[in-house]
């Protein structure tokens, strides 16, 4: 009986993230438009785009290989699985222990790996630009992310998201410098990972400044749809991670009843909304930086993460 | 009834006379081989029945090994020299008269070395070594080219000085022994000396050892007394290079060891160790560096002989059973390996018509057997397993490092540098694009590979008899 319920919750979680992610993107776009005093596209626009893309036929470059056609599914699956393992409204998901935070990051890493390969597959120079820049960014973002994980894991004594969330909510954490550092670094990494301003501009189509868009330049139809959906999932995932680690309040305990579940869902929505608004504000208030300023930005994140870890180690051995 | 001891002396002596008389190089070459073979067989019989030592000749664990080694290498070298000489005659570098002279000298040399090994009398030993030197001088000069004469002359002068110094040392030893043992022959007989050595006058012994070290050290080729060695190896006929590196150095070293034993037995005398260690290290490192700028293949391997003599002397200088054992093993392995290398080099030089390294290349392509033979030899001489020298180097280094870390590090440095030098040249000789004439060699590979086979086996398995013998000697050497 309990098993079935757990399965149900796991399934619900997977569907939830899948359905919410376009909405979140649409919401962010909307807010940004509002901030720019524009009407902006309707909230549901992303859904429409996806559906339309799905319907369209795929135009494939002659030089594209079988890998090129497989990659969108890999990317989508990897990201989706990663997203579905993050406790959103209820901790203690059935399969949450099948991948801890490190594994989660690695999953996203493999998604990125294949995306970069896709950029190189067709053999145009734009894809090359995109992939080479992407891996350069990743080569800094991933260590930073891992440093953040170290910090949190050392505080929570675990890399298991459910456990970490439970520990954070238990309140015995107190306020720690390293936590602040970690949060700051995590936000920076999240921005970089999701190709948001100031690292990359999701809306641009000027090749020379593109990173993410350049890689997917050759994609069309359902493939493009999957990749877009994957990136939306990724955004959602990062916001939920931040939410469940730094604002773990409201998440329903594993054995929680209907009421707690309801609270959990509600708080989760709220967190997403807040995250989206903050992101939009940040993006509108800052300009995109040159590609080769990015290392400095991410290097700062890495340093912050390392600093947080070091402080912790020191405080431990005191 | 002549016993084995006199046998190893008589046969070469008779053969020398015979060969001097007989014309025709083919026959004499065969005779030469036969004589050396006989000598070798008789020497082997020493292990079976050990004749008792008289006032002039002795046989014990120490020299038994050396006699067998000497006669064996002498035999294989004579086989090699047969094919070598025939080629020299055809190419007109040697005339039959000189070949006759050469063979006579070869036997004389054998006689002299055997005498030096079996002599029970320090004076006799000295005479024998002088004789050996003179004969080799004559053979080095045999080509009568400018270089050969110059090498021989250099060898002659330096050698004579060495002889003189050694004699002075010998006299001093006698002086030291006389008060204890009394005048006359007794005071020059090994077997007597070693029994009484404890009571000798230490100061005299010290001075004596200095002179002996320098005198016989010149023959061993220790730096800075080595000058004659490279040129003598390079300019003489290759069989002689093989005998020089493989045997004569050993014989001189053998003499040195005898005297070291004497000093070791005397409590008050200075320890000969430090002197030998110093000279050994100098020779090893110096020779290792000298390998890099060599253009003449034979001269290069001559320098490598100096390096190995350095290692051996270092081992004996450090003393201790293990180190001495290693030293003895290294002497044996080195003489086998180095002579084999010279067999290969001799044929290579004949094929290529030159000794200049720059003019040979890609031997493993043009003459696979010779080429790989040389590669094998260099591997062996560089002290790489599974060949014999690795075992001795292993023992030398590992047994002394705990005692004298810094000295051993210098030694290891020398070994490494030497290895670098050897392989640097090997790359050009054996590998790469073939250069120079590529005529197939008409050569007898038997001696070379016989040596390599022994060295290889010894690298992984030593017969117990040999081991016990060496261990006894090592204990004697203190």
């Amino acid at each position: 009986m309990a098993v079935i319920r757990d399965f149900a919750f796991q399934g619900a979680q997977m569907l939830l993230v899948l359905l919410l992610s376009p909405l979140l993107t649409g919401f962010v776009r909307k807010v940004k438009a509002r901030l720019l005093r524009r009407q902006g596209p309707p909230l549901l626009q992303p859904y429409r785009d996806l559906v339309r893309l799905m319907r369209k036929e795929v135009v494939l470059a002659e030089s594209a290989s079988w890998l090129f056609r497989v990659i969108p599914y890999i990317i989508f699956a990897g990201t989706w699985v990663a997203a579905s393992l993050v406790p959103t409204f209820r901790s203690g998901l059935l399969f949450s222990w099948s991948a801890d935070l490190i594994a989660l990051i690695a999953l996203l890493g493999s998604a990125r790996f294949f995306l970069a390969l896709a950029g190189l597959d067709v053999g145009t120079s734009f894809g090359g630009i995109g992939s080479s820049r992407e891996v350069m960014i990743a080569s800094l973002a991933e260590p930073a992310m891992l440093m953040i994980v170290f910090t949190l894991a050392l505080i929570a004594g675990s890399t298991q998201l459910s456990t970490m969330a439970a520990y954070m909510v238990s309140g015995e954490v107190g306020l720690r410098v390293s936590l602040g550092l970690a949060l700051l670094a995590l936000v920076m990494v999240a921005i970089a990972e999701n190709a948001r301003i100031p690292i990359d501009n999701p809306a641009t189509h000027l090749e020379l400044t593109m990173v993410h868009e350049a890689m997917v330049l050759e994609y069309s139809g359902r493939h493009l749809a999957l990749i877009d959906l994957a990136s939306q999932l990724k955004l959602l995932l990062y916001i939920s991670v931040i939410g469940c680690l730094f604002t773990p309040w409201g998440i329903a305990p594993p054995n929680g009843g209907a009421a707690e579940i309801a609270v959990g869902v509600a708080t989760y929505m709220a967190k997403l909304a807040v995250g989206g608004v903050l992101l939009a504000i940040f993006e509108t208030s800052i300009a995109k930086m040159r590609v080769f300023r990015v290392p400095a930005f991410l290097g700062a994140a890495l340093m912050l993460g390392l600093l947080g870890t070091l402080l912790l180690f020191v405080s431990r051995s005191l | 009834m002549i016993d084995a001891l006199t046998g190893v002396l008589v046969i070469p002596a008779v053969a020398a006379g015979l060969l001097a008389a007989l014309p025709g190089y083919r026959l004499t070459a065969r005779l030469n081989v036969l004589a050396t073979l006989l000598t070798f067989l008789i020497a082997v019989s020493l292990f079976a029945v050990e004749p008792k030592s008289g006032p002039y000749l002795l046989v014990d664990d120490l020299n038994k090994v050396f006699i067998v080694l000497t006669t064996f290498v002498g035999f294989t070298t004579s086989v090699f020299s047969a094919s070598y000489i025939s080629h020299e005659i055809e190419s007109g570098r040697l005339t039959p008269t000189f070949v006759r002279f050469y063979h006579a000298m070869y036997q004389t040399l054998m006689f002299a070395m055997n005498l030096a090994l079996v002599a029970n009398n320090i004076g006799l030993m000295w005479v024998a070594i002088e004789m050996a030197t003179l004969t080799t001088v004559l053979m080095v000069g045999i080509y009568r080219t400018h270089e050969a004469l110059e090498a021989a002359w250099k060898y002659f002068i330096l050698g004579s000085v060495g002889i003189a110094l050694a004699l002075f040392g010998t006299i001093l030893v006698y002086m030291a022994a006389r008060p204890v043992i009394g005048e006359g022959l007794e005071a020059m007989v090994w077997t007597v000396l070693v029994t009484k050595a404890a009571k000798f006058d230490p100061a005299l012994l010290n001075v004596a050892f200095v002179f002996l070290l320098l005198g016989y050290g010149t023959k061993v080729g220790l730096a800075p007394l080595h000058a004659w060695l490279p040129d003598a190896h390079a300019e003489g006929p290759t069989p002689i290079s093989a005998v020089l590196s493989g045997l004569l150095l050993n014989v001189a070293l053998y003499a040195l060891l005898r005297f070291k034993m004497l000093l070791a037995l005397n409590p008050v005398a200075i320890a000969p160790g430090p002197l030998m260690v110093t000279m050994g290290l100098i020779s090893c490192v110096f020779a290792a560096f000298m390998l890099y700028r060599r253009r003449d293949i034979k001269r290069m391997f001559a320098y490598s002989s100096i390096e190995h003599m350095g290692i051996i002397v270092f081992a004996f200088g450090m003393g201790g059973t293990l180190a001495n054992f290693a030293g003895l093993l290294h002497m044996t392995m080195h003489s086998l390996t180095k002579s084999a290398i010279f067999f290969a080099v001799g044929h290579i030089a004949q094929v290529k018509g030159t000794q200049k390294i720059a003019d040979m290349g890609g031997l493993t392509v043009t003459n696979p057997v010779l080429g790989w033979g040389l590669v094998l030899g260099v591997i062996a001489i560089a002290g790489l397993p599974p060949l014999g020298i690795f075992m001795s180097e292993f023992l030398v280094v590992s047994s002394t490092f705990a005692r004298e870390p810094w000295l051993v590090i210098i030694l290891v440095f020398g070994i490494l540098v030497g290895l670098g030098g050897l392989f640097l040249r090997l790359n050009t000789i054996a590998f790469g694009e073939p250069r120079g004439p590529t005529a197939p060699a008409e050569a007898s590979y038997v001696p070379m590979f016989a040596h390599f086979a022994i060295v290889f086996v010894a690298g992984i398995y030593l017969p117990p008899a040999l081991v016990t013998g060496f261990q006894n000697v090592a204990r004697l050497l203190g």
Partner: protein
Amino acid sequence: MRGLSFDVAHLLAGSLVLVSFMQLYQDRLYALLNIYALHALVLAASVAWQAFIQDAPHLYLTALIALVFKAIVIPTALHRIIVRLGIHREIETVVGVGPAMLLGMGLVALSMVVMLRVTAEADPLAREDLAFALAVVLLGLLMMVTRRNAVSQVVGFMSLENGLVLAATGAKGMPLVVEISVAFSVLIAFIVIGIFLFRIRERFDTVDVQALDRFRGERR
């Protein structure tokens, strides 16, 4: 008698050292050869004296060899050679005479020091003799080192060898002395009238070692 024998032996040995010094000082080949003859003469005398006081008759043979062979045959032969080679004018030394003499002094002193450390039970005569002999040996070597001409090098070697014989005869009752001196005479014979000078003369018109050095292997 004891004292007298000691003094005479001492005198002769000392004079041998003196003659070595004269050789070191002399830089003309002719004169050098004459002095070498003198050197051999003194050696013969001292050997004979040793033979007398040790009443070891076989030493007389050694003395005879020294007298006939070294003091007469060799010098004359060398005279011939240098005349034929036309290098009898004069010999240039590497080190100036003065420094050479100083070095020689130092060497003599050194040999004294080394030998006098020998404990006294080796009878004084032997010690003195050894000291002088060592000095002669070292001086001979010094001479070989400081001369550039092959003939003078040979002379140096021979005086060195005289020192050896002195030591050998000084060593009381040493066997094989005669044999050794014979062997050495053979050696010297090799050197002097030996193949080398001939061959060398066939090929180059000089015995100057530098001429030989031009043909060392690895240059070119």
